[in-house]
């Protein structure tokens, strides 16, 4: 396990009377690909700007390799940023953009040339040295922005929704490339996105944020399979979220039926949120099932069919490779470990 490179302790930010970040605590390990995931306005970009040095938190401390860096300006941090709209210098060409940081650090000319050429090769832009920024496509500008940051060999690279402006195909391609670059160069990447699929695909660790709070920190698998609350479950992937009563450890009551589950420690007869992923539900004959419902729609999605099934006034979302007839009555079952129990969310504000 690598040691922590960046730590935030009790970090809060307030704009006027609006609290943007509430008491954030987190550790980022060296060489890790970390993603801040959340809806717009959740505080993810603010957190990134604090790490980059563009914003000083009102309270709390930011440490970089065990040194407090709250008041260290961006240019003195061993961190570089890929900005949301690339922020390339329009008066400089591709080569000059990438060489910008090295020239400031007074590198020798041939060292600059070598490093810039290496970077251009890394981002597949060899031969574009003399191009004007305005002549490049969005994807190419994106690559220049990445090269311009990475050429300085930072310890940490910050990426603020860097793929937001690209079309789906290009985005997927760049996701793979970014992940490859990160593994190749062994640099810590801190990535901000609102796209849950992007977060799950690329990250070692996902930090889910909402309303200026961290909701959950975990691996993509943990976040998907074991969401800690209804917000995370709802934001990551599709899910059926319903009210339940935790009868006792390993037994939950949903819609009047007791189901075995694997969760413990939620007390006895406590109201909880229950999540069941649509792909974990099997359709069976109504005679064998505790839960029955009427199929209200069937949509073909390629790999699977997406069905909605109404039972006890609750609409279930079910993914299955076999389609049921619309208006037919079906039974549903799921395995104990597919039931995820979560505490009811405390009111955030």
């Amino acid at each position, binding site marked *: 396990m690598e040691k922590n490179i960046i730590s935030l302790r009790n970090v809060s930010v307030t704009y006027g009377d609006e609290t943007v970040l509430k008491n954030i605590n987190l550790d980022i390990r060296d060489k890790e690909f970390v993603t801040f995931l959340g809806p717009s306005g959740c505080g993810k970009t603010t957190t990134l700007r604090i790490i980059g040095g*563009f914003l000083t938190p009102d309270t709390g401390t930011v440490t970089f390799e065990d040194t407090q860096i709250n008041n260290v300006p961006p*240019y003195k941090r061993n961190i*570089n940023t890929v900005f949301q709209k690339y*922020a390339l*210098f329009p*008066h400089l060409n591709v080569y000059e953009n990438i060489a910008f940081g090295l020239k400031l650090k007074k590198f020798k000319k041939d060292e600059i040339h070598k490093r810039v050429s290496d970077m251009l090769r890394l981002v597949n832009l060899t031969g574009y040295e003399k191009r004007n920024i*305005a002549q490049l496509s969005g994807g190419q500008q994106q690559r220049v922005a990445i090269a*311009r940051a990475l050429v300085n060999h930072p310890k940490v690279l910050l990426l603020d929704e860097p793929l937001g402006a690209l079309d789906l195909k290009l985005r997927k391609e760049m996701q793979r490339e970014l992940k490859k670059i990160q593994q190749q160069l062994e640099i810590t990447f801190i990535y901000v996105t609102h796209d849950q699929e992007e977060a799950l695909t690329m990250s070692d660790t996902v930090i889910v944020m909402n309303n200026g709070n961290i909701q959950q920190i975990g691996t993509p698998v943990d976040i998907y399979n074991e969401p800690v609350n209804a917000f995370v479950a709802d934001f990551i992937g599709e899910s059926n979220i319903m009210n339940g009563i935790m009868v006792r450890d390993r037994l939950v009551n949903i819609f009047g039926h007791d189901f075995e589950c694997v969760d413990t420690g939620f007390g006895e007869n406590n109201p909880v949120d229950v999540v069941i992923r649509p792909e974990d539900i099997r359709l069976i004959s109504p005679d064998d099932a505790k839960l029955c419902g009427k199929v209200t729609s069937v949509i073909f999605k390629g790999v699977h069919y997406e069905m909605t099934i109404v039972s006890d006034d609750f609409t279930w979302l079910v993914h299955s490779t076999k389609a049921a007839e619309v208006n037919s009555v079906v039974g549903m079952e799921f395995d104990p470990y597919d039931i995820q129990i979560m505490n009811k969310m405390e009111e955030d504000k």
Partner: protein
Amino acid sequence: MKKLTSAPYLLWMAIFVVVPLFMVAYFAFTDQSGAFTLENIIKTGQYTPIFVKSIAFAAISTAICLLLAYPLSYILSTMKVSYQGTMLLIIMLPMWMNFLLRTYAWQTLLGNNGIINNLLGVIGIGPFKLLNTNGAVILGMVYDYIPFMILPLYTVMAKIDKSIIEAAEDLGCSRIQSIIKITVPLSIPGIISGITMVFVPAISTFIISKMLGGSSNLLIGDLIEMQFLGNSYNPNLGAGIAFVLMIIILIVMAVINLIDKSDSDDKVLM
């Protein structure tokens, strides 16, 4: 369709720009009887010292305007957006008053018995000769024309994406370095239009030099005015001087634009 809608403007330009230009040229190359002559242009040569002085005054004023306006515009563009409008209003406020009135105000301020000399008298120095000096003329030009420098500079700087400045700082620029390496090159179009908007009126001004520089402090503007309204009535010579002045301004502008072009390719048109 496009041709049709542009017709009124073309007509306007023809009547109020092209025709007057030809008239100036016509007068410049004819004598009082209307016969062709180069005498007016040749005669202009005897006013060379005044031309030199006018160009020097305009250049000095433009330079001072640029030096004063650049930091101000920069600070303005980095302010909170809500303050920017108020600050801009305060800067523009004096312009709402009549130009003549403001120049008169300087006359009373700078005079031997003016407020400045009176105040200096209180602490026991002076009076100094402030009015009717070259300094007073340049002061008047800077004061009157500086808003024309601030506006284009501010407009260009306010349009520079803040994240570009942040990117520069991220890559190792201190605040000063980011100004030199990013803000200045990106504000060149503003510098060019600012210089144009100050230099052109400054080189042909006549009221400021007359009111603050005294009767002996003649500039080209005064010279031209004298040919049309003064005792030495000679519109042909006046047109001749104006024509030469126009050529000088055109050359200066062409040189400035050339510097601009060599600097970068994507241009904001003035």
